[in-house]
Each structure stands twice: as C-alpha cells, then as structure tokens.
C-alpha cells in the first residue's frame, strides 16, 4: 500500500503556488499572472515511488494574522488540518518580502520546505542567493530552488518533502515509544 502524505502549498500572492501545484500533480489549475488568482483551496494527487502525496494549493497570504477571506482560508488550513509538510513558495526575486510569512510558518512549528521559485528571474536580475546560508539562517529548513514553469527543481522538492515527512514521522514514533517506556 502506498504511503500517504498531505502537503500544503503556502506563500505570498503571485509567488507561483499554483504553478508548482500543476507541476506536482500534472493538473491544469488556472494560473494567472496577477495576485489573488486562487481564492479557495484546491487539491490534487501526486505519485512518487511508494508515496501518494495529496497536494493542497492554498490562496496566497502575506501573514497568518488574517485580514481577508483568502488569508483566513490559508491560515485555518495550516492551523487546523495540520498537513504533514508545508511548502512555502517564495518568489526568489522578492526574497525579503516573502520571508515574513516563512518565519510565521516556522513559528507554528509546521514541518517546512521552502521552494525558492522563479530562481531564473532572480538570476537574470543578477541576484545570487546563497542557498546554504539561507537554510542555515532559517534553522536548517530545506531550501530548493525551482523554476516551476519549466519544471526545474520539482523532483528535488518532492524528495525533500518526503525526507522531512519521514523525519517527522520517526521522531513522533520514538517520542511515543519513549512515553510508553517511561
């Protein structure tokens, strides 16, 4: 039986969540180059090896202290549904502005993988991002550069999110075992 995982895509508006969603699931979710395209959550399935990954595309949000309906949907999902892994999609060309939400998701202690999307545009603008340092600064969160429109980095993203989920699972198991023994 395939192992099942639930993964949520969060991030600022117009960072490329739906494009990554489509690259992961092979769906043809409507994607538009304007913010606020996705106003409700959408789900799709991605198979990878032994895994069946349920991908949830959330509306874009700037923070978890929700002001608008889309932001409420995104926040409530992260807080209540507790997905196995959260992918924070960051627009690499606008890195700083996107880190506010990343920190908030980290503060929820959700297992996180960062997709540094549109890294080709950032590179074209002459931005060179030190991935290792960024990951280190955020507390060793896996950071994967992606170009979702060209499906670059998607396999690596899937591998990283599986390893984060596995780590979480084994930690929980050993925690439970520890409780039983103690």
């Amino acid at each position, binding site marked *: 039986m395939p192992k099942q995982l639930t993964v949520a895509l969060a991030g600022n508006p117009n960072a490329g969540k739906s494009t990554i969603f489509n690259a992961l699931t092979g769906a043809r979710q409507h994607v538009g180059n304007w913010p606020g395209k996705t106003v409700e959550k959408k789900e799709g399935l991605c198979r990878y090896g032994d895994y069946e990954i349920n991908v949830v595309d959330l509306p874009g949000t700037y923070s978890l202290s929700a002001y608008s309906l889309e932001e409420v949907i995104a926040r409530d999902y992260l807080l209540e549904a507790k997905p196995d892994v959260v992918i924070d999609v960051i627009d690499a*060309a606008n890195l700083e*502005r996107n880190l506010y939400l990343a920190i908030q998701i980290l503060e929820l202690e959700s297992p996180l993988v960062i997709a540094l999307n549109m890294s080709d545009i950032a590179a074209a603008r002459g931005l060179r991002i030190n991935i290792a340092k960024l990951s280190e600064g955020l507390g060793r969160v896996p950071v994967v550069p992606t170009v979702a429109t060209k499906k670059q980095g998607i396999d690596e993203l899937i591998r990283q999110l599986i390893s984060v989920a596995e780590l979480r699972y084994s930690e929980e198991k050993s925690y439970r075992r520890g409780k039983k023994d103690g």
Partner: protein
Amino acid sequence: MMPLSMVASGETVRLIAVRGGRGICFRLAELGLVPGATFQVIQGSGQGPLILAFGETRLALGRGMAHKIYVESFMRGGQECQNN
C-alpha cells in the same frame, strides 16, 4: 520627507517611517512596507487607491493608509534626490 499620498506617479521612493498605531504598522510590515523598503509608485497623488511596485509584485494601498506613510525620493544607482 513627505507622505506617500503626495508622491507623483512614476517616482521611486524609500520608506522612512509609519506614523500610526500598532495595527497599521503590523499590517504594513506583513506587506513588506517597513522602513528602508524601496518601491516605485505606479499610481500616486490624486484620488483613489495607490498602486506600488516592488519589482514584479504590485500592491494596492488605500489613500488613508498612504497618508500615514512617510517616504523620501530615491534615485537608482545610490544617488538620492534632495527632497527632505
């Protein structure tokens, strides 16, 4: 230094301060509007909401909020205009 609501369309400015309560400061920080943030005003002085551009990202901002944001002119290439 001048309120953002006075900036003409097309100018690039740098945010100096937000004169407002905690609520507005938090919300603006979430949107990336913190002191030091540099952006272009696509649609500025006049009536109705403002449109700001951070690279490819655009933000719409109500005029009431823009009244509380103080900015200075900013020229690309590190050279600043005299506008203080």
